[in-house]
């Protein structure tokens, strides 16, 4: 029973069962008073009416005439199986009537009372009105209630039996309902326990019908899919990071080991040392980039975002890369709308553009034409870097955003550039698209439109400019 009381399903079913029982009781009571009750009141009124009629006639007529009228009423065949009459003179001698009266309880005179009388030789339950007539005679008018009582008993029996049956059904239904729900929940709990034990690929089995539990199970399964995907991602990232650090570390270690075992000359030793430092520096750069990605992906920054003009960023970064482009034989052009302003971090946006230009210079071939644009449209600010190189095959376009994935295996590079771009885009709430411009690749970052008028005071820089005005 303790387990039952802890079951929500059982409590719910029982409560609704009891409500049904309550409703049955209410309906029965209303029905009872609407039928048996009304009939009883009608009988009482009729008794009183007859009694009044007889006492009225007793005022003007002799007792014998009254007795005759009673006899007449008893023999007229109307209501003869239920009506009760009795008339006795002032001395208590019975004049006429169809019941035997042993004691006339004078305390209940002029009131309709329940009394057991002997009628036609058998006791029967009756409603009686006793009245003393002006000359001292006793008149009793009544009705045998046997039939109505039977109806009444029947009604009560039905109500009680019905209620008991309803209660039993409620309890039985609750148990059944609980078992059903328990079975469905067990499937979910079983799966959860399995997943907890490490079997991440387990899913809740779905039943055929599309009820609430199936829909809940579908939701949970979808959530589990997503979590498993993320877990795979984390595992994959950890593996690739470990691999990408282990390989150069192994190389450095091997070179140093070789040098120490006396396989190098003194100048060779210095070369090995220098090479080790260079490779370690490269590793430090990789770590810095991973940190930058992690920082951006965590989505939390203590420094508040400020309105940044993409035009300024483009001018800065293009001026940083123009010499490099020139030496690579590439042409670098740009165009930027003055209104291309986004809420962001200037350094990170600069880093995005630098990474995209790095990629374009490295992979677009020669002589490449690279175009940087910042456009302000009605609902977005779009920063794009396009080139006329070979582009990225459609199959690799999502993979290139993964850490350490390199589309051009022959070239040098950390394989982190586009991961950084993706992470920083994510931090800025910008969508990142790689488009095939045949020929070439166009990387587009769409930032949500921010009205420059909407952030006049929300950040440090504008605070300080208003501060100066004061």
């Amino acid at each position, binding site marked *: 029973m303790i387990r039952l009381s802890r079951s929500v399903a059982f409590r719910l079913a029982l409560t609704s069962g009891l409500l049904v029982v309550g409703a049955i009781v209410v309906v029965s009571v209303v029905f009872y008073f609407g039928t048996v009750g009304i009939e009883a009141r009608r009988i009482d009124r009729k008794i009183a009416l007859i009694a009044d009629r007889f006492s009225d006639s007793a005022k003007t007529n002799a007792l014998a005439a009254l007795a005759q009228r009673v006899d007449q009423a008893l023999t007229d065949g109307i209501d003869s199986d239920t009506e009760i009459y009795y008339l006795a003179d002032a001395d208590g001698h019975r004049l006429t009537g169809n019941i035997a009266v042993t004691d006339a309880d004078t305390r209940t005179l002029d009131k309709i009372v329940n009394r057991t009388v002997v009628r036609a030789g058998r006791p029967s339950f009756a409603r009686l009105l006793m009245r003393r007539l002006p000359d001292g005679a006793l008149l009793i008018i009544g009705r045998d209630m046997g039939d109505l009582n039977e109806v009444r008993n029947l009604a009560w029996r039905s109500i009680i039996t019905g209620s008991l049956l309803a209660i039993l059904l409620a309890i039985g239904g609750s148990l059944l309902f609980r078992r059903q729900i328990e079975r469905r929940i067990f499937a979910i709990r079983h799966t959860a326990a399995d997943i907890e034990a490490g079997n991440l690929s387990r899913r809740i089995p779905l039943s055929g019908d599309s009820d609430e539990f199936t829909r809940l199970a579908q939701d949970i399964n979808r959530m589990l899919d997503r979590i498993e995907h993320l877990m795979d991602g984390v595992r994959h990232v950890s593996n690739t990071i470990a691999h990408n650090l282990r390989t150069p570390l192994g190389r450095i270690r091997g070179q140093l080991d070789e040098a120490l075992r006396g396989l190098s000359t003194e100048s060779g030793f210095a070369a090995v040392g220098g090479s080790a430092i260079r490779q370690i520096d490269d590793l430090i750069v990789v770590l*810095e980039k991973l940190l930058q990605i992690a920082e951006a992906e965590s989505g939390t920054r203590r420094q508040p975002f400020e309105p940044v003009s993409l035009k300024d960023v483009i001018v800065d*970064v293009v001026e940083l890369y123009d010499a490099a482009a020139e*030496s690579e034989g590439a042409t670098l052009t740009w165009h930027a709308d003055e209104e291309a302003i986004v809420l962001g971090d200037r350094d990170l946006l600069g880093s995005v553009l630098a990474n995209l230009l790095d990629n374009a210079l490295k992979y677009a071939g020669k002589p490449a034409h690279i175009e940087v644009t910042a456009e302000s449209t009605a609902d977005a600010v779009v920063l794009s870097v396009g080139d006329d190189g070979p582009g990225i095959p459609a199959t690799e376009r999502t993979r290139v955003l993964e850490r350490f994935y390199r589309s051009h295996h022959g070239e040098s*590079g*950390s394989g982190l550039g586009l991961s950084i771009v993706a992470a920083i885009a994510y931090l800025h709430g910008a969508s990142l698209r790689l488009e095939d411009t045949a020929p070439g690749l166009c990387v587009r970052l769409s930032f949500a439109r921010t009205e420059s008028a909407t952030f006049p005071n929300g950040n440090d820089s504008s605070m300080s400019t208003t501060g100066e005005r004061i």
Partner: protein
Amino acid sequence: MHLLLVEDEADTARYIRNGLKESGYTVTWSGQAAEGRHLALNERWDLIILDRMLADGADGLSIVAAVREAGVKTPVLILSALATLDERVRGLRGGGDDYLTKPFAFSELMARIEALLRRSGLRDDARQLAVADLKLDLSTRRVERAGQPIALQPREFRLLEYLVRHQEQVVTRTMLLEAVWDYHFAPQTNVIDVQISRLRNKIDKGHTLSLLRTVRGAGYMISAHD
């Protein structure tokens, strides 16, 4: 030149001290935050080098704050493994004059120390800068070498100005990126090298004395001496 180094890791401290001593600086080393704070506040230094995460749980930034509160204007270089942009900004806003993340190349540390020492002594209101026969007019933004005008783009002018202000000193690529472009990321391509070689083409081509030199493994230096 007398430098204070507050660094709790003995190996790193030894590495820095040895390098600085080799370059002719005297270095006082403290491995504890409390002692370091006491030394920073009560003695005169030409430069303070501070680690951020000190052994006793103290943040080197609290020492910078104390130093600045006491009105001491000694340049402070913060050294830290806390490498994110946010931490760097915190360090610089907290009173540091420069922020270098670990691990670092000694040449980078040296270049930054020299820049800081020079900066504190240099007058910023100079109108004209010169190295050998190369002259920069900061108000007209004109450049000439041996009397011949040289056309420079605005950014090239700033690059040259920074190099000339730090003449006879090594400046690293990172320092140039930070000072001339005000960015704190490491570009993959050797963008700074190409910028420098283009600038070198403009100022040194046709002259026997090359002013703008590459310092191997460290960076660049503009110098009037051969």
